[in-house]
């Protein structure tokens, strides 16, 4: 088929070349993406992938592969910092990881088989949804039971600094959490994002997990999810070590700054700005995919 040949040739022509300038640019982009991701609680991948693909013209699979390494780094460092606070629901995380890792594996394989145009359209759809969710703001209808209540086998209990009280919750509608996690794992590997944008709203809105615990548990899980996908991209030569290193270090620095100075940032204003950025990204991805 001539058209698929052309696509293939196009991909080869656009293979990233490692130069000091590119390394510095990716480091800077990673820092910005990491900071925005930390401030908004959605991770940096959703900003990094379009930058690498649309901005630097990397093939979308290379962009996703590099972004997945930053997802792993963010998950490990954020969870290392939180371990011991009981905010991460380790048991729920371990249970849901059985499906996110499976989804991640499938997504990584699918990414190698799908046409880039299909991946671009999918990315466009997901960014559009995230932009809408960000604008609507999640309702904080957390189920806070009596502190003496029994949280059940998968529930949790943690001390909330904001309110100064102990929060206890039970996990409801587990099959729904499992289904959302499987989908999140697929989307994560396919598009190079963490997948928290799917899991956190579902865990919070329908499964009874308070927002902070849902976000911490999701951040804990995405390291394993992204690993299942990243290994496949790595085997395929789509994760070039110097470029991934620049992105990982940038995102680490950015998310550290975001968490450190985040309290003073005008988050509401940032949310509107980033929702607009994502809307533009969504349109651009569709334009690319439609070519």
């Amino acid at each position: 088929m001539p058209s698929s040949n052309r696509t293939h040739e196009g991909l080869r022509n656009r293979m990233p070349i490692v130069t000091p300038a590119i390394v510095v640019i990716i480091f800077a982009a990673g820092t910005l993406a990491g900071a925005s991701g930390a401030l908004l609680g959605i991770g940096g991948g959703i900003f990094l992938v379009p930058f690498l693909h649309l901005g630097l013209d990397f093939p979308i699979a290379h962009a996703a592969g590099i972004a997945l390494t930053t997802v792993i780094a963010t998950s490990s460092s954020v969870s290392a910092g939180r371990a011991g606070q009981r905010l991460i629901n380790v048991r729920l995380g371990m249970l849901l990881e059985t499906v996110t890792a499976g989804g991640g594996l499938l997504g990584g394989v699918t990414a190698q088989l799908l046409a880039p145009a299909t991946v671009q359209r999918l990315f466009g759809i997901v960014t559009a949804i995230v932009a809408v969710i960000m604008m609507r703001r999640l309702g904080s209808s957390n189920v806070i039971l009596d502190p003496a209540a029994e949280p059940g086998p998968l529930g949790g209990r943690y001390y909330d600094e904001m309110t100064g009280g102990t929060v206890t919750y039970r996990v409801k509608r587990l099959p729904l959490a499992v289904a959302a996690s499987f989908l999140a794992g697929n989307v994560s590997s396919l598009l190079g994002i963490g997948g928290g944008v799917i899991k956190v709203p579902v865990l919070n809105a329908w499964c009874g997990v308070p927002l902070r615990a849902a976000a911490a548990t999701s951040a804990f899980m995405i390291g394993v999810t992204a690993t299942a996908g990243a290994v496949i991209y790595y085997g395929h030569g789509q994760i070039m070590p110097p470029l991934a290193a620049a992105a990982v270090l940038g995102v680490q620095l950015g998310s550290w700054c975001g968490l450190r100075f985040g309290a003073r940032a005008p988050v509401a204003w940032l949310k509107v700005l980033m929702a607009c950025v994502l809307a533009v990204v969504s349109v651009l991805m569709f334009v690319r995919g439609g070519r």
Partner: protein
Amino acid sequence: MSAAQDGLTTAGTRLERSIGAVLRVGVTISSVCLAVGLVLEILGGPAAVASAALLQAGIIVLVATPVARVIVSTAQYARERDWKFVVLTGIVLVELLASAVAALVFNTHL
């Protein structure tokens, strides 16, 4: 204390601490390897060989860290005889292994 409640007991806290330690060590080692490797890469010249090895090592440690975290969890659940979670974390390990196998399959095809 039944296994079902261990998420809220000292066993749960112990697991969280060891997980935290594994993640911290992994992130530190990989970040240092990646940072030094990247600086050597930019400097160029005779350091190029070392930089390639360091960058490769950094990526491998980065990817191996979540895997190590799952292995540590499986071991800890086994010590506590929490067989349900031994099986669950075991499934995750098998999936991670399968993804490595899938990576090799793709590698030889190209």
